[in-house]
């Protein structure tokens, strides 16, 4: 909050009068934020209305762009009956299992790898070239290789997402570890901290904000990789559902699927932001 209050642009804005009382400034800030929320909602409503109008007047044929209402009805139908005998929940479950498994695997390997890189020059020497080599490669470029090696089953997709998550998470952890201030380390050492206690009580909490930011980036990358992988090589999952529907020109399922994919991404992002605010509240306040 203090960062927002000190935002100089707020004072430069001629429409926001200078206020000396902090409370009324806060109230104005809240009003300002809700104005943004109102405008954002209006934007969304306008897009929705344009979509609806375009379909009502038949500007674009139904088969290319079904009406919002048709998509909404299809979404309910997908939840109850599914598409080609597989319900939306089964697809969702398949996708979430893949990203969940990859995330779990990445958390127990990428964070330690990042610590190793951040704490030891040898560690950085070993891992840096490997990560920097594969990180810029689009995951879909090595998906075929994964399929050759690990088959078309779950393993190849989980591994693919795992790789997509691993690099950003390890790099963020390493940079977080690298930014732990010397005085903080020295303070702990002069209070008698052992190397292990330094890691546990100073380095890890200091790096946590960076780890969580890395996790947000990593999950975003993981989710897009997953859906893309499901479009290419899968028998279930949200990406597969969209792909299969597109082959039969069932456009409402395609759009409904895209909306579900977007919603999950949004939920992941908001969930992680909440987690970040809960776990590292000092981050926005110092």
């Amino acid at each position: 909050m203090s960062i927002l209050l000190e935002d100089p642009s707020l004072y430069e804005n001629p429409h926001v009068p200078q206020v000396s009382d902090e409370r009324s400034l806060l109230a104005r800030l809240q009003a300002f934020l809700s104005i943004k929320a109102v405008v954002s909602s209006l934007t969304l409503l306008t897009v929705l209305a344009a979509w609806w109008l375009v379909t009502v007047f038949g500007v674009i044929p139904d088969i290319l762009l079904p009406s919002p209402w048709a998509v909404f009805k299809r979404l309910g139908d997908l939840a109850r009956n599914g598409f080609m005998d597989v319900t939306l929940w089964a697809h969702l479950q398949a996708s979430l299992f893949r990203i969940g498994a990859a995330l779990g695997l990445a958390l127990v390997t990428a964070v330690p790898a990042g610590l190793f890189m951040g704490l030891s020059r040898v560690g950085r020497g070993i891992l840096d070239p490997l990560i920097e080599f594969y990180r810029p490669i689009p995951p879909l470029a090595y998906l075929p290789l994964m399929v050759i090696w690990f088959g078309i089953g779950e393993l190849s997709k989980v591994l693919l997402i795992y790789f997509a998550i691993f690099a950003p998470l390890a790099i963020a952890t390493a940079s977080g570890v690298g930014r732990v201030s010397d005085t903080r380390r020295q303070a702990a050492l002069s209070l008698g901290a052992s190397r292990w206690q330094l890691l546990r009580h100073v380095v890890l909490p200091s790096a946590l904000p960076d780890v969580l930011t890395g996790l947000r980036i990593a999950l975003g990358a993981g989710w897009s990789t997953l859906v893309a992988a499901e479009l290419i090589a899968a028998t279930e999952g949200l990406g597969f559902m969209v792909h299969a529907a597109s082959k039969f020109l069932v456009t409402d399922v395609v759009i409904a699927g895209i909306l579900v994919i977007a919603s999950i991404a949004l939920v992941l992002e908001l969930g992680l932001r909440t987690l970040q605010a809960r776990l590292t509240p000092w981050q926005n306040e110092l």
Partner: protein
Amino acid sequence: MSSTLIAHQVHKTYPSPRGTVHALENVSVSIRQGDFVVALGASGCGKSTLLSLLAGFQFPSAGRIAVDGQVVSGPGADRGVVFQDDALFPWLSVLDNVAFGLTLQGISKAEKQARARTVLAQVGLAGFEQHRISEISGGMRQRVGLARALAANPSWLLMDEPLGALDALTREQMQTLVLDVWRDTGKGIFLITHSIEEAVLMSTELLIFSPRPGRIVARHEYDFARRYANGESARSIKQDPAFAIAKSQVLDDIIQQTEYA
């Protein structure tokens, strides 16, 4: 109470692109329990390097740092450090910051919290136990830093310009607070400062440093700190003509050094 922390003929050099930097040249200091040694000098005169060596964060290029004849091999809980920037842990409450050293020692929660509360009250922060670090002022943070070092009950307190960033009023309050702690605990204190007045008021022994190479160019012993400990007020001490004479004497030493340099 007889423990002594010494620096004996200490040299510290760093390699740099423009040749070797002599950060410290032939510096000897002895800090017994109950001593208040203040290092005064311009930036870059090696005061902070000396503190870092005494704390065990670095090692001398020649000479030795020792506690009761035992060469110092690294940082230790017997030498508490108070830093210039507070160096607190923002993820912990005020109370948990102060209890940090006790947490490391594996002391039970109830006992360490009780001890941390006592020390917080000692530095005038009773009632702020559950505050987050981001919620308290710079002056309070310095008190938390002091309390954190005190709670581990070290034999020495090494203070690296802890009062440098504070406003004048807060700074005077902190001076008397540190003197109170010194009087009440009898710890050996090594304090770095830029302020002549602070140095004269607080020291039992004052070391004047000169830069390039960092060395001690003058030593004075004063009794103003002991007078404070015996009950005289800081205000009355500062009004004593002897105090003004001492300050000008120190200023003379410093000016003489810059003329020679």
